[in-house]
């Protein structure tokens, strides 16, 4: 398997201004993404889950270089794109695109659907005007819309249709890699299935690679080959989706998995839910050591002092937790 994108120790901190005493401004830092590493292989879907505010979207946008990373490396198709400026990024951005969370905010209300879809063809492809029009119709057909939608404005569409326009836009320049930033969370459930199936279908047909960001665990399991779990800006666990759902290791993942509702009332009643106490700490002053230590039922002194490293515990199963420091002593928590 070829690695299409690899992220190494990526950090994105946002400075936060706070009033100083009289003159001068004190700066706090919000650690939105803190030391995250993973690889994405060609043709796979990597799911990324976590609570709201844990840095999933920031991670996606930093990978697209919409934000400048504070530290670490982003390697796309073998080249380091971390330090490139906007002009130098052009050849790489041809091969990547993004689907956005809010279909009501991601389409310019003053442009027609065909103008929206054509936008990335302007600089990323060598198509003539008539070829572009043809391509727009082709793309509309691909996402299940029809040709007379091309002249419409976004406000005339429903949420699901808008999201499909967004998908068509992201495909316009034939990218290889697409960051799907919660593409379904603004849609209602019946439409979610439609859009997810469309994404899966497109992946098969066009050989796309997805980074699929979401907070709906069952949806992520359905679409992803591997799943990463984020907590407070850090990646806490990464494994194939089957493995992660069957035998989660990190206490946070275990708690998350126990919250997935099962569509069977009998099983649901028997299921034991692990309730995590307390609130997510602020990413401005994250707890020392392991970020989860304030809420972890199994936290020790070591967890409060030393940050656990992200290590491969079993083949292709990475976890950042002191419980698994010594593989021999490993025990699976139920």
């Amino acid at each position: 398997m070829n690695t299409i994108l690899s992220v190494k120790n990526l950090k994105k901190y946002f400075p936060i201004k706070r009033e100083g005493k009289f003159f001068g401004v004190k700066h706090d830092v919000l650690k939105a993404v803190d030391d995250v590493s993973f690889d994405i292989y060609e043709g796979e879907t990597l799911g990324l889950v976590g609570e709201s505010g844990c840095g999933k979207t920031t991670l996606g946008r930093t990978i697209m270089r919409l934000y400048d990373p504070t530290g670490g490396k982003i390697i796309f198709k073998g080249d380091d794109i971390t330090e490139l400026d906007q002009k130098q990024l052009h050849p790489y951005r041809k091969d990547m695109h993004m689907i956005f969370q809010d279909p009501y905010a991601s389409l310019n209300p003053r442009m027609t659907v065909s103008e929206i879809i054509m936008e990335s063809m302007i600089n990323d492809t060598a198509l003539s005007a008539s070829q572009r029009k043809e391509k727009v119709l082709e793309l509309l057909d691909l996402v299940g819309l029809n040709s007379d939608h091309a002249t419409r404005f976004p406000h005339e569409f429903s949420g699901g249709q808008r999201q499909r326009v967004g998908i068509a836009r992201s495909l316009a320049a034939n990218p290889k890699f697409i960051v799907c930033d919660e593409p379904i969370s603004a849609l209602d459930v019946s439409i979610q299935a439609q859009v997810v199936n469309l994404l899966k279908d497109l992946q098969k047909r066009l050989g796309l690679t997805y980074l699929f960001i979401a907070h709906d665990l069952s949806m992520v399991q359905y679409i992803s080959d591997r799943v990463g779990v984020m907590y407070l800006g850090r990646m806490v666990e990464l494994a194939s989706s089957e493995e992660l759902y069957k035998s989660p290791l990190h206490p946070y993942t275990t708690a998350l998995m126990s919250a997935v509702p099962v569509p069977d009332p009998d099983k649901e009643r028997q299921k034991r839910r692990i309730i995590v106490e307390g609130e997510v700490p602020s990413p401005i002053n994250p707890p020392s050591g392991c970020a989860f230590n304030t809420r972890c039922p199994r936290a020790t002194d070591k967890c409060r002092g030393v940050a656990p490293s992200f290590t491969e515990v079993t083949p292709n199963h990475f976890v950042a937790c002191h419980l698994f420091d010594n593989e021999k002593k490993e025990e699976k928590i139920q």
Partner: protein
Amino acid sequence: MTDSCEMMEKTEEISFKRVSKDQKEAEKILRPATTFIQDAWARFKRNKLGLVGLIIIVIMLIFAIIGPMVIPYDYRSQSLDNAFKAPGAEHLMGTDNLGRDMFVRLAYGARISLACGFAASLISLGIGVIYGTISGYAGGKVDEIMMRIVDIISSIPSMLYVILLMVVLGNSLTNVFIVIGVTGWLGMARLVRGQVLSLKEREFVLAAKVSNVSNWHIMLKHLIPNAFGPIIVSMTLSIPSAIFLEASLQFLGLGISAPMPSWGGLAQEGISALRSYPYLLWFPAIFISVTILAFNFLGDALRDALDPKQN
């Protein structure tokens, strides 16, 4: 799946008809395609006061364009025999101290005042939109410096440098346009910057960045069109203040030179004869107030019409 199919078949027998399975058919939009302008016009028509304003402005424009051609008098030829004629059949709005017909002078005044209103606000629109967009989009230090410059300029009383500029440039119609335009863009720049600041974080702008389009494309296609509503409203509301400023300049003797009349100049002449011939002040005053009121009505109506959330 099979369960639900059987269910459907059963229900079909009872009362329901199976809907066509054609997905494409389901996506059809029945509402005719409308552009943004058509939508805005439909909303605008509902506002009666705005329509009244628009009609008054159109009448004023017609009066300004056609009036001087139709009225059988000249704005400059004096006939002292006819001085201070009261409004009547021969002179609809009377004559002034030099026997010039007031109606034709008001028509010429309308040309000057309206042209000044439009030209000056177009100039401030141009400067303000470019300045504000660059400042807001660039952000950071550039924005900080550009906005401090605006703050400094706006801390000087505008009348002061309007007068200074007029003295330096000399009295002419174009100079009046320029001076009013050059001093009126500050508000527009602030407004556009604010709009751009919030728009540039929107997802469609991020999508454009990911699509590899140039910054100019983003500004022209995404930022300015989406700030268009507030810009048009603010421009409409700045026209009356330009007309007003021109009138006050004329009143101070700094506007265009006689005998070319403007509404402000006519009002100033009228004031000297207020006791004996009040109509000389009344007519220009009424024209100025009605026009300004009409523009304000129009601006308010446009504010509502251009906001798509009002639908």
